[in-house]
């Protein structure tokens, strides 16, 4: 193990480590903590210049205010409307593409695979004008499905890379044996491979959820109004209205951050397995 386990060091070093850990964490998360505290600070404190001193009270009303007086609740619902269909769509499509690329040795295999991988890394801006134009033409501008369809297509690239590598690591004999038994290809996919994919599906679902929930660029390009804007774009436009009302900006930020954070804590193991792309085994 590297570095040498702290237990093998002197007692002093162990104490030092025990003290350094929480301090380092505090420094690391300092900006976030500051915002979390500001979100609970009464507006009057900020008006009097009391930014970092003892708050005069805990102001839950900041949160109540943004829920009742701004469309932040609607924005969050819009985000769910985009995020959940995207997760289902991208995971389903990539299960099939990943299966095709992992199991069959046809000639264009590697080419198709690299195309998915490369597509996943292109800058969004090269897609922006045509995708926006197409979405407008199809009458899907400013709708949740217009945004979700694009996200499904784009995320299929990354998901295919992940699924393909996962299926490649499964024992191929399973599929061979089924073929000898005369099981059709579709049933091999459905009854043999799919049940083994649960961890991969879980990992990809949390990752895609986070990516889509946090997406800002496409939300600005493909949606506009309160009825369809996701939370990221919504928060940005609210920020424009709340000039320097930092208690509200902070409360909105904390709310927008909450769902992906909760997702991460619930599904930590899967999340990290997904992020490392299976590259670090």
């Amino acid at each position, binding site marked *: *193990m*590297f*570095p040498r386990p*702290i*237990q093998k060091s002197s007692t002093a070093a162990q104490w030092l480590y025990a003290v350094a*850990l929480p301090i380092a*964490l505090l420094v*690391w998360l300092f*900006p*976030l903590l*500051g915002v979390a505290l500001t979100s609970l600070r009464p507006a009057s404190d900020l008006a009097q210049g009391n930014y*970092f001193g003892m708050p005069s009270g805990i102001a839950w009303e900041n949160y109540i205010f943004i829920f009742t007086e701004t469309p932040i609740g609607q924005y969050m619902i819009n985000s769910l409307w985009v995020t959940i269909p995207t997760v289902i769509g991208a995971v389903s*499509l990539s299960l*099939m*593409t990943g*299966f*095709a690329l992992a199991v*069959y040795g046809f000639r264009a295999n*590697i080419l198709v695979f*690299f*195309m998915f991988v490369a*597509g996943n*890394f*292109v*800058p*969004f*801006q*090269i*897609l*922006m*004008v*045509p*995708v926006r*134009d197409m979405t407008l033409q199809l009458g899907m501008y400013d709708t949740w499905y217009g945004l979700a*369809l694009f996200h499904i*297509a*784009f995320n*299929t*690239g990354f998901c295919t890379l992940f699924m393909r590598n996962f299926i490649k690591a499964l024992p191929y004999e399973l599929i061979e044996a089924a*073929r000898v038994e005369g099981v059709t290809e579709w049933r091999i*996919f459905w009854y043999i491979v799919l049940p083994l994919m649960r961890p991969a599906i879980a990992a990809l679902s949390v990752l895609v959820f*986070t990516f889509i929930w946090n997406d*800002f*660029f496409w939300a*600005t390009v493909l949606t506009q109004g309160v009825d369809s804007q996701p939370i*990221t774009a919504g*928060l940005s436009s609210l920020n424009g209205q709340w000039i320097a009302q*930092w208690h509200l*900006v*902070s409360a909105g*930020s904390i709310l*927008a*951050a909450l769902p*992906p*954070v909760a997702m991460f*804590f619930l599904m930590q193991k899967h999340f990290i397995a997904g*992020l490392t*792309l299976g*590259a*670090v085994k």
Partner: protein
Amino acid sequence: MAQASQAARRWNQRTIAPWLFLAPGLFMFGVYVLWPIIQSVTLSFYDWNGLYNQDGEFTGTFVGTRNYAELMTDPAFETSLWNNLKWLVLYMLALPIGLFIAIFLNQTVTGIRLYKSLFFFPFVISQVVVGLIFAWFYAPNFGLFYLLTESLTGKGTAILADPDLVTYGIIVAGLWPQIAYVMILYLTGLNNVAPDQIEAARLDGAKGWRMLWYVVLPQLRPATFIAVIVTVIGALRSFDLVSIMTTGGPFGSSRVLSYYMFEMALGEFGFRMGYGAAIAVVLFAIMMIFISGFIWKMWRDEKER
């Protein structure tokens, strides 16, 4: 005879099946990713305001390479390109810092799992939120950074309002989640470092930096590779933070290519779709250098298998 035809059917099934499985994914990817790339490249040779005439016909005019010629003399484009370079270079700091934090956290004391996930936090939250958090941190008069510089130098620095410093301020905000990402890659990598090699090196008297450099880092190469790729992509994709923290200002000094493209095509300066597309093509070309490197490496690994 019956057996032969059955075998033929089986063979047929196996040639067609992959394409049936690929069809929906390929269709979506083709429509939303591949085709738009071709369209954008084409569009970069046109002058177009994004509108159609009454009959629904495209109203753009072909201008050849004029958009690219204009880019060459556009000072805003030059600023964006320089800023992109700053992003690329400074973003690489995420690697050593991420590795350092990973090594710091790679212990087995009680509660370390929770510490690791809390250190990872900044990556999980949206860049919009990161941008707002840092805007608050940098805010003039009461922001913590402002107060800190004030107490150190006697004069507060409003970093987001300073044309010379603003880009660095945004890059620091971007580094925060990026370091977290790199850290998690290295933590997973450190978990898989062969313990016997470490022990053997330790018996040979290796420790500290020498151990890290000669024994540990070579084993972390797969993690480093992924970390470099995601960091480069992250640096070149920087749009959210610029948009949230400064909208390219002050005086356009914090623009990057991705943001400048958006401004040209959809911003308040009018709908110059062709010019925007030309900027996007330049960004795409830069990104392609790194993408090809990645694909080349993957291709080599595939062949070795």
